[in-house]
C-alpha cells in the first residue's frame, strides 16, 4: 500500500529523558514533590525500585503524572504503579482520587478502552491432562471466538441486546443463559456498575460497539490457557480455588469500539466544560468536568454503560471458552475466579485523613486491590482480600496477587495491571518477525494462534518490562501480595 502513496514515510525514535526531581521515600516509593511545578496541587508518588526509578525517566510518563497532580479537587497524592509508562493525559499506571464535592472526573483518566480488564477462569481438569491437547484447544478457541482488529460477530446482537448490555452488564448475559450466578459473584461490581445510562451515549458509540459485542479484538488483547506453576500463599490460593497444576484461562479485553467512541466524544465535551468551569489544564487530554456538573454526570453515566458492555463482553467470551473446552475435553467445569477492570473511574469510600470519604478513584492501567473485610470484595474472598490479576507477556505468564489493608492506606486500594510496555509497537515490529516469536514460543511449549504474525511481533515478550520487577515492587511495598504464578501453555491473539 505504501508504495502507492508518493508520500514521504519514515519511522524514527525520539529519545526523551525526563530531568525532573525524583526523591526516594523508601525502598519502593519515589516522590515528585509538588514544589517541582507551581501548578501541582499534590505530590506525585511512583511505586518502583531503584532500577525502575531510572527507567521511568526515559519518556514523559513522570511529567504526565505531575500534570495529573494539577487537577482540581484531589483528595491526596497522585500515584503511579511500577508498570507506569507514557500514555496521553494520565500515564498508564496512574491513580488519582478526587473529591465528590470539589473534584472532577476526566475521560483521560480512564482511557479509550473503558473497563479494559482481565478475567481469570479455572477448569477442573488438571493442566497436565490438557497439555497434550493444547493445539486442538487453541484451534477451537480461535474458531469460536471472533478476534482481530475490528472483529465482528457473524450473527450479531440487536439494539435491544446492546441496550441491556449497557445497563445490565454481565447479568444480562447470564440471564440469557450464557453463564452462572457464580460468575457474577466473582466479578467486580458483580458485572454491572450502577448509574449507567445508554441515553448518555451517542448513536455513533452504539453503532461502533454493536457488531463487536462478544469479540476479543486486536492489539494487546488475548486469551491465554495456562497452568498454575507456583503457589506462594497456600491459604489464599485455596480460597481462590487455585493449586499447582490448576488449568487456567485468562481473558483480556474491554469495551471495544464503543468505549473508544465514548472517550473521544466526552473528551470534546469535557474540554468545553473545563473552559466553562474555569479549570486550567496542563494538558488538554486531561479535560475534565466537575463531578457535580451535568457534563461530569453525563460522562460518568456513559462510562458506566461502557464498563457494563465490557463486563458483558467478557461474560460472552467466558461462555465461548466453556463451549470450546467442552468440545475438546468433554465434561469440564469452568469457573470464574475473578474479573476486574483496569481502566475505570469508580465512586468508592476510603479512609482519608482519618475520616471516611466518598471519592472518585481514577485507575488508568491500574487495578483495584481491596484488602480483607471490604464489602465490595466477594463474600467467598472477603476474609483474605480481593484477587488482583496481573498478566504479563506471552512468554513469562501472569501473577495472581491479593489486595491488602496496606493498599487501602497507601493507594486507595490500587495495584498494578501488568508488565507495561518498554518498547513501542513499531520498534518491536522492526526488531523481530512474528514467525520468530511463534517459533520461540513453540520451543517453550507454548501454542500460539494469531490473526496476523505482525501482532505477535508487536506484542513480543521483549517489548514489555519485566513482570517480576513489577510484581516484586507491588509485593515488597505491600500493595498486594503474591498468591500464585501462572505460566502459559497456549496464547490466542487478535
Amino acid at each position: 500500500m505504501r508504495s502507492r502513496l508518493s508520500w514521504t514515510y519514515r519511522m524514527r525514535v525520539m529519545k526523551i529523558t525526563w530531568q525532573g526531581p525524583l526523591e526516594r521515600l523508601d525502598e519502593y516509593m519515589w516522590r515528585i514533590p509538588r514544589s517541582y511545578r507551581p501548578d501541582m496541587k499534590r505530590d506525585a508518588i511512583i511505586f518502583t525500585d531503584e532500577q525502575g526509578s531510572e527507567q521511568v525517566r526515559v519518556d514523559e510518563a513522570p511529567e504526565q503524572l505531575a500534570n495529573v497532580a494539577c487537577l482540581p479537587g484531589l483528595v491526596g497524592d497522585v500515584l503511579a504503579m511500577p508498570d507506569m509508562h507514557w500514555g496521553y493525559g494520565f500515564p498508564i499506571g496512574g491513580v488519582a482520587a478526587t473529591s465528590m464535592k470539589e473534584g472532577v472526573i476526566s475521560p483521560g483518566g480512564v482511557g479509550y478502552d473503558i473497563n479494559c480488564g482481565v478475567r481469570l477462569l479455572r477448569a477442573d481438569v488438571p493442566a497436565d491432562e490438557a497439555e497434550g491437547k493444547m493445539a486442538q484447544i487453541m484451534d477451537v478457541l480461535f474458531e469460536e471466538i471472533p478476534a482481530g482488529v475490528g472483529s465482528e460477530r457473524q450473527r450479531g446482537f440487536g439494539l435491544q441486546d446492546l441496550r441491556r448490555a449497557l445497563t445490565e452488564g454481565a447479568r444480562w448475559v447470564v440471564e440469557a443463559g450464557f453463564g452462572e450466578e457464580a460468575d457474577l459473584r466473582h466479578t467486580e461490581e458483580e458485572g454491572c456498575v450502577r448509574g449507567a445510562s445508554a441515553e448518555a451515549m451517542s448513536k455513533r458509540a452504539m453503532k461502533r460497539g454493536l457488531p463487536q459485542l462478544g469479540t476479543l479484538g486486536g492489539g494487546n488483547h488475548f486469551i491465554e490457557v495456562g497452568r498454575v506453576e507456583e503457589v506462594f500463599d497456600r491459604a489464599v490460593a485455596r480460597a481462590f480455588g487455585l493449586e499447582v497444576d490448576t488449568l487456567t484461562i485468562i481473558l483480556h479485553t474491554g469495551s471495544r469500539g464503543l468505549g473508544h467512541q465514548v472517550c473521544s466524544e466526552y473528551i470534546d465535551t469535557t474540554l468545553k466544560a473545563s473552559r466553562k468551569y474555569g479549570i486550567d489544564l496542563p494538558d488538554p487530554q486531561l479535560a475534565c468536568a466537575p463531578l457535580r456538573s451535568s457534563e461530569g454526570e453525563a460522562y460518568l453515566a456513559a462510562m458506566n454503560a461502557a464498563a457494563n458492555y465490557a463486563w458483558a463482553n467478557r461474560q460472552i467470551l467466558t461462555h465461548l471458552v466453556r463451549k470450546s473446552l467442552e468440545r475438546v475435553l468433554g465434561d469440564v467445569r469452568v469457573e470464574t475466579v475473578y474479573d476486574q477492570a483496569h481502566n475505570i473511574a469508580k465512586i468508592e469510600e476510603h479512609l482519608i485523613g482519618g475520616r471516611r470519604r466518598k471519592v472518585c478513584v481514577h485507575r488508568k492501567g491500574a487495578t483495584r486491590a481491596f484488602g480483607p473485610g471490604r464489602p465490595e470484595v466477594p463474600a467467598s474472598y472477603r476474609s483474605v482480600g480481593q484477587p488482583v490479576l496481573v498478566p504479563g507477556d506471552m512468554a513469562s505468564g501472569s501473577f495472581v496477587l491479593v489486595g491488602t489493608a496496606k493498599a487501602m492506606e497507601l493507594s486507595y486500594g490500587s495495584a498494578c495491571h501488568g508488565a507495561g510496555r518498554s518498547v513501542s509497537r513499531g520498534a518491536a515490529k522492526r526488531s523481530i518477525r512474528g514467525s520468530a516469536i511463534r517459533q520461540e514460543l513453540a520451543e517453550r511449549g507454548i501454542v500460539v494462534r494469531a490473526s496476523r504474525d505482525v501482532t505477535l511481533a508487536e506484542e513480543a515478550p521483549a517489548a514489555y518490562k519485566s513482570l517480576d520487577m513489577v510484581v516484586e515492587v507491588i509485593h515488597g511495598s505491600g500493595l498486594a501480595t503474591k498468591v500464585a504464578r501462572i505460566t502459559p501453555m497456549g496464547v490466542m491473539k487478535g
Partner: protein
Amino acid sequence: MTRWSPSPELPDEKKTKGFELLEHTADVRIRAWGRDLAEACEALGEGLLAVLDPSPMPPATGTSRITVTAPDERGLIVRWLNELIYRCAAEGKLYSGFRNTRVSLGRGESAQMSVEASEHDAGEIWVGCEVKGATYHGLSIVRREGRCEITVILDI
C-alpha cells in the same frame, strides 16, 4: 531480540506535503506537513491510512466529501482524524487521495473543514491496526516559512 536502530535518513523536507510516523512507547505519533493547515490535514489523513495499514488496499469505489466542525483548529484536527477512525471502525470505509480541502477558522463551533477523498470499502480486507482515537496530548501545530506542520498522538 535484536535491537532496532533508527533510520539514518531524514524525512524529505523538500516535499511540500508529507508525513512520518514517530515512535511512542504505547501508541504512535503522526507528524504531517503541507503548505498550509489544509494540506497538513490531508497529509494527516494519509498518515492515518498508513497506521491502519490495510492489506491489500481495496480499490476506490467513489469519491466522498467529509466535513467536520470544532471550536478551534486543534479540535478540528482531532475531530478530523476521529471522523476517519469512526468511519473505518463502524462503516468499514477507508479514505485516500485527500484533496480540495477547504478550512475556515472562527470562534465557537464555527471552525470547519471539508475534504474530498477517494472512498474505499474495506469489506473483508484486513486492517492491520485498531486505532482507538486521536488525542490532544502532545498535539502541536507549527507554522513557519510557508509551511504548516502538525504532530498528533493516536491511541492504538
